């Protein structure tokens, strides 16, 4: 929604997000209170009016030229037309001159965030009538309820949008590595995130300011974490986890970065009764050396058509009443192998069976190898599989492969 500037564009965006029970409920109330055959929630877009909730008429789109509500959104308060046939603006309207031959209209304009009027809550009748002052007040009150729902929707959408922008836009360009990451949140925002960053320095701890290794020996750190719970609360904590881990990772070895992240975020996590499972690893693109910490995540593996090696440790997640000592694990990623890390939402569709999940990964690796699929295609196929097998949680996958030709 960030590129949206006009009220009609905002209306189109709301309409694209769809209606829902929360709007239907208000429309049913309006229809019952006023005893009209028709009540509707219309959003006035650039070219079309979108009816996203209605009683007595179909939801859907009609050309904005035929919209009665397009006049309602031009005024600050309620618009009432006691007899549509007697008003020259509407006498020739298809739903007045033909169709249901409507006679009466009353609509209250609905403001979106920042006060732009995006549509109207309206009632329509087959006979001319006039509302009393009390009825005007009630229609305005119902409109305020809808406005509140629209505001919540816009806020959630923006939160999700911000979270999507916090994810890495594109993998770092590191010679010798192909990387792809993908998240599908079950709601507008969620507790899964992945990240990657280039860590200057050699595996032996020499820093980037050491001229012997400068610019020649970068490591790539790949992270996938899952904050307990779902939705906006989880996404707030996910943002903090990501920032804190990134900051520490820049300067210290991986195991220390995880321990410091745990210390730094302890108050936020325990204060919110939340914990975080985390897998993070540093890969040397030149020789494939991989050091990692698995903090209760358990869903990272090195896969090829030859087999699967889980990169799992016995460590606890972050944010528990008992603090753990996170130690480094080590492996080597061979040239024909892939590093795959997924979230538990993917794991769920295998009925939480590690055997089934790991053999599915091996099949994916064989498919990727045979068909020369990109790491992005592998990540997509993993999430597509989970989507089509009833996944209900946030889904995340990160796939990394070394590339022989440029290494």
């Amino acid at each position, binding site marked *: 929604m960030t590129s949206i500037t006009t009220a009609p564009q905002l209306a189109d965006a709301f309409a694209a997000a769809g209606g829902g029970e929360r709007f239907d409920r208000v429309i049913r109330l309006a229809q019952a209170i006023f005893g009209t055959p028709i009540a509707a929630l219309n959003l006035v877009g650039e070219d079309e009016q979108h009816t996203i909730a209605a009683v007595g008429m179909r939801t859907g789109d009609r050309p904005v030229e035929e919209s009665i509500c397009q006049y309602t959104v031009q005024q600050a308060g309620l618009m009432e037309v006691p007899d549509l046939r007697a008003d020259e603006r509407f006498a020739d309207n298809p739903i007045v001159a033909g169709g249901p031959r409507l006679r009466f209209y009353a609509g209250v304009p609905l403001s979106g965030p920042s006060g732009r009027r995006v549509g109207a809550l309206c009632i329509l009748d087959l006979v001319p009538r006039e509302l009393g002052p009390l009825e005007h007040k009630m229609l305005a009150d119902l409109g305020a309820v809808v406005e509140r729902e629209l505001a919540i929707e816009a806020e959630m959408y923006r939160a999700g949008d911000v979270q999507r922008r916090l994810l890495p836009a594109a993998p770092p360009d590191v010679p010798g590595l192909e990387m792809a990451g993908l998240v599908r949140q079950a709601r507008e925002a969620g507790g899964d995130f992945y990240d990657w960053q280039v860590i200057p320095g050699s595996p032996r701890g020499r820093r980037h300011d050491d001229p012997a290794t400068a610019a020649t020996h970068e490591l790539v750190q790949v992270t996938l974490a899952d904050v307990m719970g*779902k939705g906006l609360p989880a996404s707030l904590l996910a943002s903090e986890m990501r920032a804190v881990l990134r900051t520490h990772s820049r300067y210290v070895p991986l195991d220390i970065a995880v321990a410091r992240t745990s210390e730094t975020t302890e108050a936020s996590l325990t204060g919110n009764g939340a914990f975080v499972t985390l897998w993070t690893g540093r890969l040397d693109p030149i020789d494939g050396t991989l050091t990692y910490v698995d903090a*209760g995540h358990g869903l990272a593996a090195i896969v090829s058509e030859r087999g699967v090696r889980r990169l799992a440790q016995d460590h*606890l997640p972050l944010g528990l009443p008992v603090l753990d000592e996170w130690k480094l694990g080590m492996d080597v990623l061979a040239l024909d192998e892939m590093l795959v890390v997924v979230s538990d939402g993917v794991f*769920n569709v295998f009925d939480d069976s590690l055997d089934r999940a790991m053999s599915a990964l091996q099949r994916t690796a064989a498919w990727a190898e045979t068909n020369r699929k990109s790491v992005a295609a592998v990540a997509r196929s993993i999430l597509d599989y989970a989507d089509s097998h009833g996944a209900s949680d946030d889904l995340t996958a990160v796939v990394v492969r070394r590339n022989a030709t440029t290494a």
Partner: protein
Amino acid sequence: MELTEQEIGTCVTLAPVGKFNLVSAPPVKARIDALVAGGKVKIVVDLGGVDFIDSSGLGALIGGLKAARQHGGDVRIACAGEQVRAVLKLTNLDRILSPYPTVEEALHDW
């Protein structure tokens, strides 16, 4: 979600039934907190009726465990089914929340 409660001596057993997730976890966590606040700090959660647990369910158990331990008690779990045990094992949470086969065994030294 159905939640049955039973007092056995100084201990309390809680038995949630169905899916233990974002929707059903908060009432269980709230009940554990209320028990702990009322001085009942030895709590066994009977998971025999739970066919699915997610991270929110785990969070409720961990949060309850933390509250109980701060007051000198503990939360123990019993009768965990296959999916519950798989998730506990995957996250290594079985290290601090080890499943007892039966409620009786969970209560044995309380």
